[in-house]
């Protein structure tokens, strides 16, 4: 792969042809804008642009700008390198082009021309819009609409930005309030085990777990869910130790417990 080289000779020729622009880099909004200005200078249909010639003009411009010690933004230099490379590929005889080359240089050149033409079209569109009849510049609506208001009801105010803003406002206020989750109070396993053991003598028949677990006291204290969970855990431990038996008829059905040491 050859290193891209700046084709200064061709650039100088282009400059000598009197086609170089007065260097005023501040006047351009980036390389594509500069390319469009140069392309318009060729005075041809932009889609039939000679990219090779355009590359020469661009390189001449960049060279002149550097000679005058303008500091050029990186993207101008990247474009210069890319154009020099593209031009060298365009000049290569077809046969010498490596087979694995993805896009033929001609296609890439055509795409660049297309892209310039597209920017040109938008710039012309912008001008056309500006020169059309504009409200309160060229055309005017009733200067004194009558006192009673007749308004279009079809439209409701509000757009996505408004919606986003409306969302952010309360959320931002929200930031002032700290979030402190209440730590959950849980029923201790030891307590559950002790309670279960105290019930053992009465648990000769199958007893629902929900009847064994303590009722939650109103207000503070562990939740009912915690009472049930801890009682179940304690119960399972006691099953393992052979003190009680447990059974459940179906998934999610009531769990029953009874004392293993039945008289």
């Amino acid at each position, binding site marked *: 792969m050859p290193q891209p080289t700046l084709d200064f000779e061709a650039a100088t020729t282009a400059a000598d042809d009197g086609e170089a622009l007065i260097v005023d880099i501040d006047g351009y909004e980036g390389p594509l804008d500069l390319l469009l200005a140069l392309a318009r200078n060729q005075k041809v249909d932009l889609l039939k642009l000679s990219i090779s010639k355009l590359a020469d003009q661009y390189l001449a411009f960049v060279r002149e700008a550097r000679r005058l010690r303008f500091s050029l933004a990186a993207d101008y230099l990247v474009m210069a390198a890319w154009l020099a490379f593209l031009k060298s590929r365009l000049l290569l005889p077809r046969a010498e082009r490596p087979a694995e080359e993805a896009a033929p240089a001609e296609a890439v050149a055509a795409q660049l021309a297309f892209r310039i033409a597209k920017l040109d079209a938008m710039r012309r569109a912008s001008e056309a819009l500006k020169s059309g009849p504009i409200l309160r510049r060229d055309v005017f609506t009733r200067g004194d609409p009558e006192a009673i208001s007749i308004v279009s009801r079809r439209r409701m105010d509000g757009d996505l930005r408004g919606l986003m803003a409306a969302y952010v406002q309360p959320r931002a206020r*929200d930031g002032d309030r700290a979030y402190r989750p209440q730590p959950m109070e849980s029923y201790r396993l030891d307590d559950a085990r002790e309670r279960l053991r105290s019930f053992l003598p009465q648990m000769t028949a199958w007893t629902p777990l929900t009847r064994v677990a303590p009722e939650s006291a109103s207000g503070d204290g562990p939740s009912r869910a915690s009472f049930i969970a801890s009682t179940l855990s304690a119960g399972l431990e006691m099953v393992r130790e052979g003190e009680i038996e447990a059974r459940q008829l179906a998934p999610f059905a009531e769990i029953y417990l009874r004392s293993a040491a039945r008289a």
Partner: protein
Amino acid sequence: MSEADGIARMIEALLFAAAEPLSESDLADRLPAGADIVAGLEMLRSLYAGRGVELVRIGERWRFQTAADLAFLMTRERQESRRLSRAAHETLAIVAYHQPVTRAEIEAIRGVQSSSGALDILLELKLVRMRGRRRSPGRPVTWGTTETFLEHYGLASLADLPGVAEMKAAGLLSLDLPAGFNVPDPSAVKPDEDPLDAPETPQFHLDYLASDTEPT
């Protein structure tokens, strides 16, 4: 077009666009020199005679006004407020981003006690709807947005609501936001919601919670 016609046209445009009635000398100041203003006004007056809009002289000045017999058309509609109140707008935004969301949650986010008025307005405008019920104690109703909402904001789906990145890009998020500020994805599946009409088959989770309140 005759010259007199041309002058009449110009007078027509000037009177139409003027913020107040114009006198003949006002018109003369703005028309080409030598324009026959009296003839132009006369031409316009006969042109508009019997139309919905008429050319009338008020003192020394001229103006267009709607025909008196059509006044009944003009008095009926008063300007309707088309702008949502701040409360309603905020509520709508919260419903949009947090749906399905309960009233209590909306109030928690807005930091206010009451949001039912705002929800009523949004419901009437068909911007929000009741979506279902939260599977939590009390089974509160959850709220969501409607098709009308999507249409109004030009969204194809809820997934198209702008997210944090766009809020940042729009300069809406200041830097001193609480850490961990995030915006929920309203299109995500929320499993803890039941349809409004409660299902026949109770689910484990519900059963479990229900058992909480059963007398034992």
